[in-house]
């Protein structure tokens, strides 16, 4: 099995709202320098899905990541979990794009990699929450796609996918090669393995520039975009929380219940 997993480096989505700021000149979110960036958690789950398939069928997992000034200790994380190869689309020209330019670049890179059975992506990136790149790649490469996977098993050139539905799940069978996006219901990704951590330190990623994957020079950065971001802002939070007190926590609980009763909410 040859599996390609697309991963994105993002600011930590667990960052509390109070520590989150917006850079008005670049129109992006910022976090304190003390908080390291992470692999998009949904992409980590895509990685876990790939490993579960590799556990059963063996094969190779190639990680593909697009960005600029990528932190090696972050993008190498999938290698520490058990991925075999890391290819970075790293260049200033890749920055400032949107789902369109990103999907196009990744699709070109996947074509260049060539021999693959399955492409896995997280359902959305937990920074911009756009949720389009995976399906965009599938459409460009004319691959069948299944979204919201919580379980993936491969047998006989087909993937059997449990897809999350509002009241449970559905079982979908898709012929390979295919693109599948993974949701958090898949479960916790495994921890890094010490042996792989040590190996990954020495592993140098392959780097592909726009010309290496055949992107026309005029089609990079903001010129490759379709969508224009007009405004990015933090909504002002109105209203204050009324903390109900008491001499003891029990008393506070009683007071809360009375308060709710007063407000006719209970």
């Amino acid at each position: 099995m040859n599996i390609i997993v697309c991963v994105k480096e993002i600011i930590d989505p667990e960052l509390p709202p109070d520590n989150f700021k917006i850079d008005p000149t670049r129109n992006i979110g910022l976090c304190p320098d003390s908080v390291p960036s992470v692999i998009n958690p949904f992409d980590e789950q895509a990685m876990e899905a790939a490993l579960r398939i590799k556990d059963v069928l063996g094969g190779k997992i190639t990680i593909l990541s697009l960005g600029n000034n990528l932190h090696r200790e972050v993008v190498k994380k999938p290698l520490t979990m058990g991925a075999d190869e890391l290819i970075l689309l790293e260049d200033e020209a890749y920055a400032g794009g949107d789902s369109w330019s990103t999907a196009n670049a990744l699709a070109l890179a996947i074509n260049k990699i060539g021999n693959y059975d399955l492409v896995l992506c997280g359902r959305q990136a937990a920074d911009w929450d756009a949720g389009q790149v995976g399906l965009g790649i599938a459409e460009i490469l004319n691959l069948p796609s299944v979204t919201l996977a919580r379980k993936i098993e491969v047998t006989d050139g087909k993937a059997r996918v449990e897809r999350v539905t509002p009241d449970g799940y559905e079982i979908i069978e898709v012929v390979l090669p295919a693109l599948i996006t993974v949701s958090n219901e898949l479960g916790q990704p495994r921890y890094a393995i010490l042996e792989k951590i040590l190996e990954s330190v020495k592993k140098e990623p392959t780097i592909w520039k726009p010309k290496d994957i055949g992107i026309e020079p005029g089609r990079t950065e903001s010129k490759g975009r379709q969508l224009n971001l007009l405004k990015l802002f933090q909504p002002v939070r109105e209203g204050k929380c009324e903390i109900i007190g008491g001499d003891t926590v029990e008393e506070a609980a009683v007071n809360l219940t009375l308060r709710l009763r007063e407000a006719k909410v209970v």
Partner: protein
Amino acid sequence: MTNYKNVMIYAEVVDGKLATVTKELLGCGGKLAKDLGEELYAVLMGSGVSALANEVIAFGADKVYVIDNPLLKDYNQDLYFLSIAKIVQQEIPRIVILGHTPIGLDLCPRLAFRFNTATVLDCVELSIEPKTKLLLRSKPVYGGKALASYVSETYPQMATIRSKSMQPSERNDSRQGEIIPIDLGLDQSFIRARVLEKVIEEKEGIKLEDADVIVTGGRGIGSADGFRQLEELAKILKGAVGATRAVCDEGWAPTTIQVGLTGKIVSPKLYIAVALSGSSQHMAGCAGSETIVGINRDENANIFNEAKLGVVGDWKIVLPVMIQRIKSMLEK
């Protein structure tokens, strides 16, 4: 100037009835069409759905394209995608909007890429820019910590809307409209991803999306057993129990009751948030609640920035007291 005209919505059907989001799409789409001085169209697909076409008109559509075919009985991406793509190609609508549901988020991006156009998913606001007539789309980003507004210049202009963020239209059975049945010559052979089986895991009882009261537990509950207390509180309040993603990841609650950005979006009268931090991703799911109550040991928890009322304390102490009090209130 463009040849693309009119607003087209995808009329989603759930359990043989128009989905709530469909009425929201008709409400929102209708307003956009009015601001454009253009018409509102709907695409209705499935098996045995033709009878719903009149209702779609009653809720605001000027024209309903109906594709009724046994092969469409259950959603499958290949046939649904081909069908909508065909209609869009034929009718060249200026705007195409779907609900941000498992169907909408599955179809919309592929359609956008097929038509070489841009889409924005999970929008909470849509409006027409008066001079350019372009669609302005706003959606929460960074897990709900910020709001982003987008515009694009290609057609059709596409979006999905978040449940409960748009006003549903009102039913008016005297409305007139056109019903256009379409036969697309669909074939099994187009299906590359086939649905084999559907499994219902949801417990019986009040659905989260319909509940007036929801009691949600977070990581601080500590175990699946801890949820028994929340169930009791929810029961006496005639409500439902919800869970955060952290709780579902731990396996203490089924993912069908996950409230949040990638879970259920709820808007009850009362939302009691127990032992949860109030992350932006969670608040994205419950921000529409009328009254949010926070119960958390940590006075710095973000939930106290979001709730209307709060108690700083251990839920293991607070909840039994609340349950006991409410029980005695009900007895009187």
